[in-house]
């Protein structure tokens, strides 16, 4: 580099139309100052830059790790949520099945009860009808008996003249006497 700088200075000093013509000392000082600054920068700044880069890399790496862990956690939570959703679906299905079974059982029970009641009502109605028929028949029979008795009484009364009355009394007395004799 110094050779390069020496050649550049020599060239400049030997060329009149050059910008650096007549300013060789200034160039040399400036060059040396630049070299010193660059050297300082390399000596002190490079390790610091390297440390910063390393720290940044570590930070980024840590952030990546954290993000990965967060991703894993999120995935785990997602799985849990999915599992809960699946469980909820199963529970929903179970409740639905149970509700259907309960409804079916209730339906069967209600239908059976309604059928029993209908049967009982029918039997009661039949019994009532039979009872009414029997009562009507008994009433009719009693009425017929009363009418027949009335008719018989009228006929008997018409035919009960004095001779018949006397004969009835005599028969009664004879039967009483026979009964007494039989004892």
């Amino acid at each position: 580099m110094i050779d390069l700088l020496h050649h550049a200075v020599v060239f400049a000093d030997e060329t009149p139309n050059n910008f650096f013509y007549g300013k060789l000392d200034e160039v040399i000082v400036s060059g040396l100052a630049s070299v010193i600054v660059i050297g300082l920068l390399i000596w002190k700044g490079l390790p610091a830059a390297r440390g910063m880069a390393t720290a940044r890399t570590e930070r980024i790496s840590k952030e990546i790790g954290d993000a990965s862990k967060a991703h894993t956690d999120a995935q785990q939570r997602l799985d849990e949520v999915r599992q809960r959703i699946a469980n909820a679906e199963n529970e929903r299905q179970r409740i639905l099945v149970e509700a259907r079974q309960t409804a079916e059982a209730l339906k069967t029970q209600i239908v059976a009860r309604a059928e029993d009641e209908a049967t009982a009502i029918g039997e009661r109605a039949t019994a009532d009808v039979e009872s009414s028929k029997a009562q009507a028949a008994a009433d009719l029979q009693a009425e017929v008996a009363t009418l027949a008795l009335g008719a018989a009484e009228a006929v008997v009364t018409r035919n009960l003249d004095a001779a018949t009355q006397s004969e009835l009394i005599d028969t009664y007395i004879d039967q009483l006497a026979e009964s007494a004799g039989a004892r």
Partner: protein
Amino acid sequence: MRDRTTLYADALYTLIVAEGSANEVRDELSVVTQAITANEELRGALLDPHIPAGRRQQIVEDLLEGNAHAVTVAVVSFIVATGRIRDLADIVEGIIQHTAAANQRLVAEVRSAVPLDDDQKTRLAESIRKSTGQDVDVLVIVDPSVLGGIVTQIGDEVIDGSVRHRLAQLKEAF
């Protein structure tokens, strides 16, 4: 303590016995009782508190005098005067029981639609005597509701040979 009806029966029986002809008076009282019970108009008049007692007695005496023993007329008139005509049947029943006890005979109350002649009464009394082993006084009550035949009651025992009873049996057989 005996009730008032029994006391009346006791007192009037004593009176009847004292006057004689107890059996005749007993029979007549039975007939009179039946007649008053059956005739609602007569019974109503004898029960009517608005008719003076003397007037009611007069009704009885007008009806019975000449047709019944004087003691019979007096007994019924007395019962009417005391306002006990409602109890007439029970009082007469008491007198009948006293007479039967005094005679040591049973009283057979015979209900018939028509009166019994003497022969029938005698034969009936004889049949009952054979049946019960005791002498019997037959007390005939004419009751048209019997229709025909006879209903005999001796104490609590009833021997029903009436047409009414046979018709009732016929009705039950239906």
